[in-house]
């Protein structure tokens, strides 16, 4: 009797503990977001989005920062998607399951956990100095592409793994080659998962600051980049810079820029969810 009571107590106790844990994170997040909204939302207007940086907080804008972020995003996607998806296809569909494959697998998983600043140092040596890209958009995009490659590779593999074997076998049965099977059957069936992975990886790249500081992203750029070889700044750099200024006006600017950055991330995550749902419904097997 006594024992049952104790077990019931533990049972409901754990339930409330779990609820507390769930809400703890959410409440902290909500406080942060509400505080930033209160501070910054009034600052966002057309002028804020289309103005150059300035020493006067009320005149300063994020034109170069958000266009830099858009450039970086586009270029990083161009570089990392073909590389990452192709690598994932190779490892899952072509690669033999031997010792080498498991070594590669472990390494990719480890790469996903390497601190981003290490990628920055790697990018500085390889892209900025050896390949002589300088502190350009291209150098930044290659560095971030390296950073998110492991995520894309893992996502591609998981998505391909989820495609039922019967689909491939049916395709082979119809006389399709391996490539035809991958291109016409497996890849479309897996594309929901792959796209979700890509977009989540890219939204991580959008928020990165440390590796870009290392490769030489700038704080003051008074022009919008026109070629991938131009120098650049990005939203997180601009926020970082404003947060550490003494004048309160810059703190407000930083909050406003954070809202824009959050919006970009939310929109990207929204697209990821939408695509996942869309493909899940479409593919029937």
């Amino acid at each position, binding site marked *: 009797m006594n024992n049952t009571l104790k077990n019931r107590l533990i049972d409901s106790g754990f339930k409330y503990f779990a609820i507390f844990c769930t809400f703890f994170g959410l409440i902290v997040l909500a406080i942060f977001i509400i505080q930033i909204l209160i501070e910054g939302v009034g600052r966002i207007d057309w002028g804020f989005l289309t103005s150059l940086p300035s020493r006067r907080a009320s005149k300063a804008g994020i034109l170069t920062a958000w266009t830099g972020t858009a450039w970086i995003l586009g270029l990083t996607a161009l570089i990392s998607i073909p590389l990452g998806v192709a690598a994932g296809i190779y490892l899952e569909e072509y690669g033999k399951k031997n010792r080498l494959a498991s070594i590669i697998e472990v390494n990719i998983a480890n790469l996903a956990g390497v601190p981003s600043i290490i990628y920055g140092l790697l990018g500085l040596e390889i892209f900025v100095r050896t390949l002589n890209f300088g502190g350009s958009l291209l150098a930044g995009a290659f560095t971030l592409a390296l950073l998110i490659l492991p995520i894309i590779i893992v996502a591609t593999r998981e998505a391909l793994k989820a495609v039922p074997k019967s689909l491939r076998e049916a395709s082979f049965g119809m006389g399709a080659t391996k490539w035809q099977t991958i291109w016409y059957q497996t890849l479309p069936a897996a594309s929901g998962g792959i796209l979700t992975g890509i977009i989540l990886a890219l939204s991580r790249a959008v928020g990165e600051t440390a590796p870009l500081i290392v490769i030489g992203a700038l*704080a003051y750029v*008074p022009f919008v980049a026109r070629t991938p070889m131009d120098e650049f700044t990005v939203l997180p750099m601009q926020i970082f810079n404003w947060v550490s200024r003494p004048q309160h006006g810059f703190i407000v600017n930083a909050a406003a820029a954070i809202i824009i950055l959050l919006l970009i991330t939310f929109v990207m995550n929204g697209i990821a969810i939408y695509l996942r749902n869309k493909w899940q419904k479409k593919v029937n097997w």
Partner: protein
Amino acid sequence: MTLKANLTLALLATSIIIASCGSKDSTSERDTTKIKGEVKIDGSSTVYPITEAIAEEFRSEQPNVRVTVGVSGTGGGFKKFSRGETDINDASRPIKDKEAEACRQNNINYVELTVAYDGLAIVINPKNDWVDHFTVEELKKIWEPAAQETITKWSQIRPEWPDEEFSLYGPGVASGTYDYFTEAVVGESGSSRGDYTASEDDNVLVQGIIGDKNAIGFFGLAYYEENQNSLKLIPVKNEGEPVLPTLETVKSGEYSPLSRPIFIYVSDVALKRPAVEAFVNFYLANAAELVQDVGYIPLPKEEYQKEISEFESFTNRGK
């Protein structure tokens, strides 16, 4: 197939957005009498606000010169400067021997120009009503490495002060401000006790001191100016009377030893380009006004004149 189509569409959209923004920037290109070119600047984040202000104003004078400013820190900036990757380095301390050596090895000669002063403010919580001033010796006693875990109470600094523990706030060891403070107060750059709350973001220090009755902290004067109502500035006594850091006392050097000069370094290789020369001339001519705008303290007029003539003779030497 749809995967491919979707991606192409997304990329196309991005590039259209970018391209349409790019065209906005080209309004000023018809003026051909103006100089064209690039000025690449990197270095200290302390000096950054000044350089940013100058670059912003320079744009209306020379719209075709692209000035970019980074914030790699004084040391990180000198690394790039000595490789010839940047034209100008913002520095919150003088160049170190090692850095000067690296410049020599790459055949880069440079000129050091003082552009402003910064006062280091010693601040406490306004609820603290016993501290009227600190002497430099007292500051040393508080901050020197030997004080770690032994000097922890106000009464150990001056017997009449309360028998309560104080807590210390200061910039992180990587900052030029920390280097300068330790050199001026402890006597050796980079040497201090380790048991204090350190942050690279001075606003964090401000918040810490506001919330802690027993706090003592130091940071750039501009951060005090912005938070005057919630912090208490403490005069520092070196020789003679205790001195509060103000525009006048920092400028005249009376607020010693906690007022420091800040610099820009210009390389001779870069000066072969007219854009760099024009920018530096503009810098020295307009610093007096703009420096104050961003919370730093300008040099006296005649000192700017001295910097201008020094820069002029350095430029002529290279020609």
